[in-house]
C-alpha cells in the first residue's frame, strides 16, 4: 500500500525480469539507462531552480512514465560515487577507511560495496530508486551507502540511535524496499520491520545465514553473506544527475520528520566547490565523525574520497576523547560541529599547540563562537580554521569564512564568527517578508539558490512550495533558510543573527520546537505544550525545557512515551506544569514570558 502511495513519484522497473541478466545496462550507448529516470522531465534543466519554475508540483505528483531519451546529456556515470571510483583506479592500495582496528584500501572497500551492489541488483531489482542503510560507524555503513550509489540509487541513512518508531516512519515515507543492516542496528530491526507493511529485501553482511529471520518474517526477503553475489558481477549503473543521491530526514515543525531530496547534481556541485577551496590529496587523513543521518557526514566522506584521502572513523567510544583520536591517527583534517570544541576544552584536550598535525579544521552545523574558534586555532596552529554554513536543503554547506586571529574579532557579531561568503556558484540574497532585498547593514532572511538547491521535500509539495519561493523580481527559485543574517556592507562577510522561526540547534542537530510540541500535545493530551531551548548557548541551546498546559500529568509516563518517539537530543530535560500558559495579545503562546521565567531563576 505504501508502495502504491509512492508509485506516482517513482518509476518501478517492470522489464528485464530475468534475474540472471545484469539488472542495469553498463554505460550510456544503448539508451536503456534512461528508463530509470526518477522524474519525468521533458528537457533536462541547466539549473535545478529552473525545474521549479512552476513545474515542481507537476513534476512531483505526475505519474511517472518510463521513457527513453537517448540524447539526454545529463546522465552521468555513477554520479556521486564517481569520485570514489576514480580514486580506486588511481590509488587502489591507498587507505580509504580506518575503522578502529579495521583498515581498508580503496580496492578493498570498492570490493565490499560492489558485492553489496550486485546483491541488491539481483535480489531487489524492483522498487523505488532508493536504498536504506541502517548502519552507523561500521564497514557495512560505508560500503552500504556506496553500494546504493553503485547500483544507481540514492541512499536513505537510518540510525539505531533514533527511536525505532522514527526509523520506521522514515522507511515508510521513503517507500524503500531494500535495506542494508549492520550488526549493531540489527537489534532494532524487529521493532522497525513490525511497522513496515510492504515487503522488504534486507541485506545482512555480518551474518552467514538468516534462517531465523526468514522463519520469523516470511513476508520479507533476507539475504545474508552466504547469499551475496560476487563483486565481479557488479556492473556500474547509469545515473541521471537529477536522480536523488540521498534522502535525508530533518525535523519538521508539524510533528513528522521531512525528507530533503538532494540530487546527484546538487552534491557533485558541493563536492566540486569544496575541492576547489580545500584541495585534499592522498596524504590527507580526515576525521569522519558525524553520523550518516547528519548531512555533515557528506563533507567528511565524498570530498576526501574524491581526492584519494583516508577517512578515519572513531567508534562511539573513541568519540568521547576527540583529541586523543586526532593524535593517534595523526589527522590532517578535522570536520565537526563547533560543540566539539567546547567538549574537548572541558576535557583538557585543547591545550595550545596540541594538534599540530591538523592542516584544515572545518566547522559547520551550528554557530561558531569567537572564543571557540580562538581556542581551536591556538591548539591547531598549523591549521586553517573555517566556519561553514548551510541548511540540508542547500546540500550540506554553501558558504565559508576563514578565521583570522586579528581580523575575525572585528568582523564578528555578538561574539559569533561570520558565515562569510557564498560558494562561488551559489547566490545569496537577504530579504524582508515580501522577498525584497533589505538595505545593506539591515537584518533580513537569507535566501539562496544555485546548483546546490535541492528538489524540496519528499512527497510534500505543500511544504516545498512554502520554503522554495521565487522572489517577485527574479526568474529563479530560492530556498528560504529561515536564518536571519545581516546584509553585508561593502563586501564584508555575512553575519548570522538568529532564527526567524521556532527552530533551534542542539549540538548541531536541527530541531523544530513545533515537532517536540506536537508530540507533547499528543502524549500528554493537552491543547497547549511549549518547548523552549534552554539554557541558551552561543551556538543554540543546551537542551529543551517543556511547559505543559495542565496541572496534572504522569511525568514518568510522559517521559517514557516521548523517548519512544523522539531522538535523545529532542527529549526535554525538564517538564513544567503551567495550567495557564501566558498568551500574547494576539492569542499566541508568549514564549518570551516563559523564557523570562527561566532567565529569572538563573
Amino acid at each position, binding site marked *: 500500500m505504501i508502495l502504491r502511495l509512492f508509485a506516482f513519484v517513482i518509476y518501478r522497473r517492470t522489464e528485464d525480469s530475468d534475474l540472471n541478466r545484469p539488472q542495469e545496462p553498463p554505460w550510456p550507448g544503448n539508451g536503456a539507462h534512461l528508463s530509470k529516470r526518477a522524474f519525468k522531465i521533458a528537457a533536462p534543466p541547466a539549473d535545478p531552480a529552473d525545474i521549479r519554475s512552476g513545474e515542481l508540483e507537476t513534476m512531483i505528483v505526475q505519474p511517472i512514465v518510463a521513457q527513453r531519451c537517448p540524447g539526454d546529456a545529463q546522465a552521468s556515470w555513477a554520479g556521486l560515487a564517481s569520485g570514489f571510483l576514480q580514486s580506486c583506479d588511481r590509488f587502489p592500495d591507498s587507505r580509504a577507511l580506518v575503522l578502529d582496528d579495521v583498515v581498508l584500501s580503496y580496492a578493498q572497500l570498492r570490493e565490499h560495496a560492489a558485492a553489496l551492489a550486485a546483491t541488491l541488483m539481483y535480489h531487489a531489482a524492483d522498487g523505488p530508486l532508493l536504498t536504506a542503510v541502517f548502519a552507523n560507524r561500521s564497514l557495512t555503513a560505508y560500503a552500504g551507502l556506496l553500494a546504493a550509489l553503485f547500483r544507481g540509487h540514492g541512499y536513505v541513512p537510518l540510525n539505531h540511535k533514533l527511536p525505532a518508531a522514527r526509523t520506521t516512519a522514515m522507511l515508510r515515507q521513503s517507500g524503500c524496499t531494500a535495506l542494508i543492516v549492520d550488526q549493531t542496528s540489527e537489534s532494532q530491526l524487529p521493532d522497525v520491520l513490525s511497522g513496515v507493511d510492504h515487503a522488504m529485501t534486507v541485506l545482512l553482511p555480518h551474518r552467514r545465514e538468516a534462517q531465523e529471520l526468514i522463519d520469523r518474517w516470511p513476508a520479507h526477503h533476507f539475504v545474508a553473506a552466504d547469499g551475496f553475489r560476487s563483486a565481479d558481477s557488479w556492473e556500474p549503473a547509469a545515473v541521471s544527475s537529477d536522480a536523488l543521491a540521498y534522502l535525508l530526514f530533518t525535523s519538521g515543525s508539524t510533528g513528522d520528520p521531512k525528507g530533503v531530496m538532494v540530487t546527484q547534481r546538487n552534491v557533485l556541485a558541493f563536492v566540486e566547490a569544496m575541492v576547489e577551496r580545500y584541495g585534499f590529496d592522498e596524504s590527507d587523513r580526515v576525521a569522519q565523525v558525524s553520523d550518516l543521518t547528519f548531512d555533515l557526514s557528506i563533507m567528511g566522506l565524498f570530498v576526501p574520497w574524491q581526492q584519494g584521502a583516508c577517512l578515519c572513523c572513531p567508534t*562511539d*567510544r*573513541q*568519540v*568521547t*576523547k576527540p*583529541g*586523543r*583520536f586526532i593524535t593517534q591517527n595523526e589527522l590532517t583534517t578535522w570536520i565537526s560541529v563547533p560543540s566539539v570544541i*567546547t*567538549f574537548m576544552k*572541558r*576535557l*583538557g*584536550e585543547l*591545550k595550545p599547540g596540541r594538534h599540530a598535525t591538523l592542516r584544515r579544521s572545518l566547522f559547520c552545523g551550528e554557530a561558531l563562537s569567537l572564543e571557540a574558534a580562538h581556542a581551536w586555532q591556538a591548539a591547531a596552529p598549523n591549521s586553517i580554521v573555517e566556519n561553514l554554513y548551510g541548511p540540508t536543503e542547500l546540500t550540506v554547506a554553501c558558504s565559508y569564512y576563514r578565521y583570522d586571529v586579528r581580523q575575525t574579532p572585528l568582523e564578528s557579531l555578538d561574539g559569533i564568527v561570520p558565515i562569510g561568503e557564498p560558494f562561488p556558484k551559489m547566490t545569496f540574497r537577504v530579504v524582508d517578508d515580501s522577498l525584497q532585498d533589505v538595505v545593506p547593514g539591515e537584518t533580513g532572511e537569507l535566501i539562496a539558490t544555485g546548483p546546490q538547491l535541492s528538489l524540496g521535500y519528499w512527497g510534500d509539495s505543500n511544504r516545498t512550495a512554502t520554503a522554495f519561493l521565487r522572489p517577485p523580481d527574479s526568474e529563479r527559485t530560492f530556498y528560504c533558510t529561515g536564518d536571519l543574517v545581516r546584509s553585508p556592507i561593502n563586501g564584508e562577510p555575512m553575519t548570522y543573527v538568529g532564527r526567524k522561526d521556532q527552530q533551534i540547534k542542539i*549540538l548541531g542537530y536541527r530541531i523544530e520546537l513545533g515537532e517536540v510540541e506536537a508530540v507533547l500535545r499528543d502524549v500528554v493530551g493537552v491543547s497547549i505544550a511549549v518547548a523552549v531551548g534552554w539554557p541558551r548557548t552561543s551556538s543554540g541551546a543546551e537542551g529543551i525545557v517543556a511547559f505543559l498546559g495542565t496541572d496534572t500529568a504522569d511525568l514518568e509516563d510522559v517521559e517514557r512515551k516521548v523517548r519512544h518517539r523522539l531522538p*535523545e*537530543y529532542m527529549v526535554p530535560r525538564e517538564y513544567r506544569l503551567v495550567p495557564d500558559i501566558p498568551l500574547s495579545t494576539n492569542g499566541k503562546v508568549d514564549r518570551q514570558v516563559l523564557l523570562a521565567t527561566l532567565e529569572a531563576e538563573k
Partner: protein
Amino acid sequence: MASVSSRQVRAFLLDTYAEPLARKGISIESVTDDFDLLREGIIDSLGILDMVTALESQFEMSIDFEELDAEKLTHLGSLCRYVEASGKRLAS
C-alpha cells in the same frame, strides 16, 4: 581543598546516576569497578560533560582529563582513581 578518595567519587557517581541505574534494574551493590557507564547506557557521550561538571563542582576542583583514555573515562574504577589522583596532584 579537602582530599578526595576514590570511594567518595564512586559513592557520588552512583548517587548521581541512581535513577538511570534503577531504570535499568541495576542494584548499586552489584556495580563493580569494571562497570562502564557508557557501555551500560547510563550516560551517552553527551552526558560526559555533565558528569565532568558534576564531579568538579562536587569536589571543588578542576580536573584535567586529558591523560585519561577514552576506554577509562567512563570506566568506574579507572575514573574514580583518576579523580582521586587529580585531587592529590592539586593538593601537593
